[in-house]
């Protein structure tokens, strides 16, 4: 057995982490032991998505280090900077005095933001934009000031300006060049971009050099070369990056004149045992400030470390991003630097669209292009760079290319360098049938996401239609079925399946149709044929437990309970011998009820003023709240009253999945509203609405959807949100997954919802509100309705031929003073079971 060699990686950023994973993937025999030394106190996170940290994405969600990535053969040391490389002894030394020997050393130290030598750039209130710590500091400052200025109108500068807007500041960008994003777009594209971002509330000062920053009363004053000045609360520098090459420099490695560790096409430095990758490396005379080339370098070094001969030649600098809702993309030779290149331009300044293609002088091949305002053709156009044109440039500009003739070599995902051939192989050989599985299998689409539409196209072309079919009985998905039922007015399962499906249904389509019928207001869910569609929980208006008994949860709106109510619930639990437990939704769960006991339990609860809490339904569950300004010394709004009002408005609303909501009376968020589908948090000026949160298997925080709403505005917006969800989500899709699916379909799901539900782009808002008004107006208690109906009551028996007999298989034992199911005989499920035939 050969001894393990030591690989030391300096830096745990996106590229350093990618290297570790790339080596691990290629090194199943564990020939390399890996030590990663990171200066930041946290493991690698997604800097591309950094801005989302300010709008609610958590540190954990940004994290890039998979569970189990570091094990016995690899180690991640955080919060320790490497201070010296001793090339003779082949060791590195850290700020904590640790000495780590290496056989191979990879420098992935990244870059630092460049702060121009402007007097005053080091004042309080001046920031850079690179790490989570930077964002925390900016957020703190933003809480006390009204405006912010970003110096630098490049890609990252606009991102930072966007962040300032999302923090509620008025924001400006100061750019030295005569246009925004000078590296990516040309003058024409820059002009459209400026107009669009100014429409969206961002002021842009172009052709402007900052000479000085001074502290003035309560803020900063920026003075410009033209003699003008601007007062602001904070300044963010985003004027480019500088490679962090100081370690290499001190160790005597070759560095470039303007910085950057010189590497060859293997990404090897002037010392053959030392490599450099990412933004600290100077490859082919240039420093790459994008993540995609960094990833490619990581792959090259991983390959070389394991005996391969991969090379980093020239990276694709294509970029696509969405800033303040404006699509901007550039690819290939965007500035027409190729000799005799021709530019074909389409500009619609009114519509805010600018498109340019750069082609060879005979218009036979595509060289590059710029897209502003509409970048839908980006993914397909980028893959065609260097290829013969499939159509005239004008047609390609206006209609976009067809992707059917995408060659296997064409690069689909530039961030992860995945070709069309690799995607096709994942579809055909690995059986990937949807975008999510392609992402998991190839990593394509996992960084910037701009190629996701192309992944869908490739799936469709490979004959793998995104199959919306609900089950073997219906070829359409839930959303389409909802529309069919709504428009045709069909109200029985038999009619619906006869006209739009086949067979007699199953445990998937029947509850789905039951839910649709209930959402459309079709009487009691156990009326007529509907009774046969319901899952056992809905059929018995209670939640089935592991031993076949049910639990009963009365509604406690907003979690507010009178002493009399509390006593009544306690008496019911005592008299029926039920196990009682407080739920996470601020109510009381009564467990262990047999089918024949349910009506008697409900009768007692209904008489005491309670009603069904719909704990059994794919429906609104609870609206959790804190005591709010009524009692709490920190509260700024009456969260309890609002929660009760919301719970009473939306109770009984059947939906594709359960709906949870919460209302907090101040930013301390004691009601945990952001873990709910609908979360409301009080602000000084009203209510902030968050949507799309959930706990469960994959926890998600709800994201801010609208701010400072009045009670009436809030209710209208929640009406629209919930009814649109009810109508268009897939079965068993919580709001978070629904918004994710909208993102796959429309770009940014939340922005899409904003367009539909706030700007009323589809003209459906009035209808959604009316539908919710109908729901609220027609609500009745499902328990009370059964108690009034002899026929329905007769179904609540354990045995049809012995209505009084309890199920003898249900047995309890006592634990901590209450019942619990007795553990029965071991469960037998296997080939030993006898098959009895008639």
């Amino acid at each position, binding site marked *: 057995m050969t001894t393990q060699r030591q690989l030391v990686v300096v830096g745990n950023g996106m590229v350093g982490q990618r290297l570790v994973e790339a080596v691990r993937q290629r090194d199943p025999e564990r020939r390399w032991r890996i030590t990663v030394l990171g200066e930041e106190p946290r493991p690698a996170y997604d800097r591309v998505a950094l801005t989302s940290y300010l709008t609610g994405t958590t540190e954990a969600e940004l994290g890039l280090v998979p569970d189990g990535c570091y094990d016995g053969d690899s180690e991640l040391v955080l919060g320790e900077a490497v201070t010296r490389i001793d090339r003779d002894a082949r060791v590195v030394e850290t700020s904590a005095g640790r000495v780590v020997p290496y056989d191979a050393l990879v420098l992935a130290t990244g870059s630092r933001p460049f702060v121009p030598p402007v007097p005053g750039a080091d004042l309080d209130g001046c920031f850079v934009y690179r790490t989570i710590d930077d964002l925390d500091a900016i957020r703190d400052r933003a809480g006390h000031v009204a405006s912010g200025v970003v110096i630098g109108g490049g890609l990252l500068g606009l991102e930072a300006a966007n962040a300032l807007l999302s923090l509620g500041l008025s924001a400006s960008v100061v750019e030295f060049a005569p246009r925004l994003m000078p590296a990516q777009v040309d003058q024409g594209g820059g002009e459209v971009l400026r107009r669009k971002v100014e429409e969206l509330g961002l002021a842009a000062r172009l052709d402007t050099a900052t000479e000085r920053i001074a502290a003035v009363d309560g803020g900063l004053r920026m003075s410009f070369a033209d003699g003008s000045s601007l007062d602001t609360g904070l300044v963010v520098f985003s004027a480019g990056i500088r490679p962090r090459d100081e370690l290499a420099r001190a160790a005597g490695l070759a560095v470039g004149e303007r910085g950057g560790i010189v590497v060859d096409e293997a990404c090897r430095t002037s010392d053959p045992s030392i490599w450099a990758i990412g933004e600290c490396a100077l490859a082919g005379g240039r420093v790459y400030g994008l993540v995609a080339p960094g990833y490619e370098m990581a792959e090259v070094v991983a390959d070389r470390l394991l005996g391969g001969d991969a090379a980093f030649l020239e990276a694709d600098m294509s970029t696509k991003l969405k800033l303040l809702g404006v699509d901007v993309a550039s690819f290939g030779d965007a500035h027409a630097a190729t000799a005799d290149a021709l530019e074909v331009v389409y500009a619609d300044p009114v519509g805010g669209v600018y498109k340019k293609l750069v082609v060879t002088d005979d218009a036979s091949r595509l060289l590059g292009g710029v897209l502003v305002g509409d970048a839908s053709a980006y993914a397909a156009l980028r893959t065609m760079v260097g290829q013969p044109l499939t159509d005239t440039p004008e047609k390609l500009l206006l209609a976009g290319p067809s992707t059917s003739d995408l060659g296997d070599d064409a690069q689909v995902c530039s961030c992860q360098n995945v070709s069309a051939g690799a995607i096709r192989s994942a579809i055909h050989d690995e059986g990937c049938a949807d975008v999510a599985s392609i992402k998991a299998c190839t990593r394509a689409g996992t960084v910037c996401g701009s190629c996701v539409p192309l992944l869908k196209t490739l799936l469709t072309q490979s004959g793998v239609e995104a199959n919306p079919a609900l089950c073997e009985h219906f070829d359409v998905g839930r959303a389409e079925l909802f529309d069919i039922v709504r428009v045709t007015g069909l109200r029985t399962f038999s009619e619906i399946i006869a006209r739009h499906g086949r067979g*007699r249904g199953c445990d998937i389509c029947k509850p789905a149709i039951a839910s649709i019928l209930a959402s459309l207001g079709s009487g009691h869910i156990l009326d007529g044929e509907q009774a046969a569609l319901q899952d056992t929980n809905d059929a018995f208006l209670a939640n089935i437990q592991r031993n076949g008994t049910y639990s009963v949860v009365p509604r406690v709106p907003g979690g507010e309970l009178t002493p009399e109510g509390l006593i009544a619930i306690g008496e019911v639990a005592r008299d029926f011998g039920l196990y009682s437990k407080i739920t996470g939704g601020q109510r009381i769960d009564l467990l262990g009820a047999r089918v024949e006991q349910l009506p008697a339990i409900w009768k007692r609860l209904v008489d005491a003023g309670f009603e069904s809490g719909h704990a059994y339904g794919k429906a609104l569950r609870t609206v959790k709240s804190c005591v709010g300004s009524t009692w709490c010394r920190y509260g700024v709004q009456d969260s309890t009253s609002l929660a009760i009002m919301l719970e009473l408005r939306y109770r009984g609303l059947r939906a594709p999945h359960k709906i949870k909501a919460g209302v907090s009376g101040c930013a301390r968020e004691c009601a945990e509203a952001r873990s709910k589908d609908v979360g409301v948090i009080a602000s000084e000026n009203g209510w902030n609405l968050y949507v799309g949160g959930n706990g469960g298997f994959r926890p998600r925080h709800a994201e801010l959807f609208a701010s400072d709403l009045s009670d009436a505005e809030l209710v209208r917006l929640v009406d629209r949100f919930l009814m649109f969800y009810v109508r268009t989500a897939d079965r068993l899709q919580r709001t978070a997954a629904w918004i994710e699916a909208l993102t796959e379909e429309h770009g940014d799901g939340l922005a899409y919802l904003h367009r539909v539900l706030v700007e009323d782009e589809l003209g459906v808002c009035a209808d959604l509100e009316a539908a919710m008004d109908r729901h609220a107006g027609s609500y009745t208690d499902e328990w009370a309705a059964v108690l009034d109906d002899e026929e329905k009551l007769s179904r609540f028996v354990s045995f049809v031929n012995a209505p009084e007999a309890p199920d003898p298989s249900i047995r309890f034992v006592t634990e901590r003073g209450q019942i619990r199911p007795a553990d029965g005989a071991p469960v037998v499920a296997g080939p030993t079971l006898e098959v009895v035939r008639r």
Partner: protein
Amino acid sequence: MTVLDVRAWTVVCRFDRLLPERGVAALVGGEQVAIFRTHDGALFALANRDPFSDAYVLSRGIVGSRGAVPTVASPMHKQVFSLVTGECLDEPGVAVPVYEVRVRDGDVEVAVP
């Protein structure tokens, strides 16, 4: 020649008591039997015990079809059983007992061996 019918038939309930595409449970000679009425009026009877969860709940499952086979899905973990043979269609090798069931004079009768 005469074949004696030695099976013991037990009257369970009136046929009208059964809802189309739902089940009921009955106690027959100490056994729990799940009886289902499909949309066309046909009757099927299985053991009520779900072999996967060991709970007596199959009568409360959703009745439907898979291909041409009438089925019930366990309400506990949704495994689908054939109403005709009792076999689990999701887990080959697992099955529940099936019983004979008929309608006589409007009464539903089950035979448990």
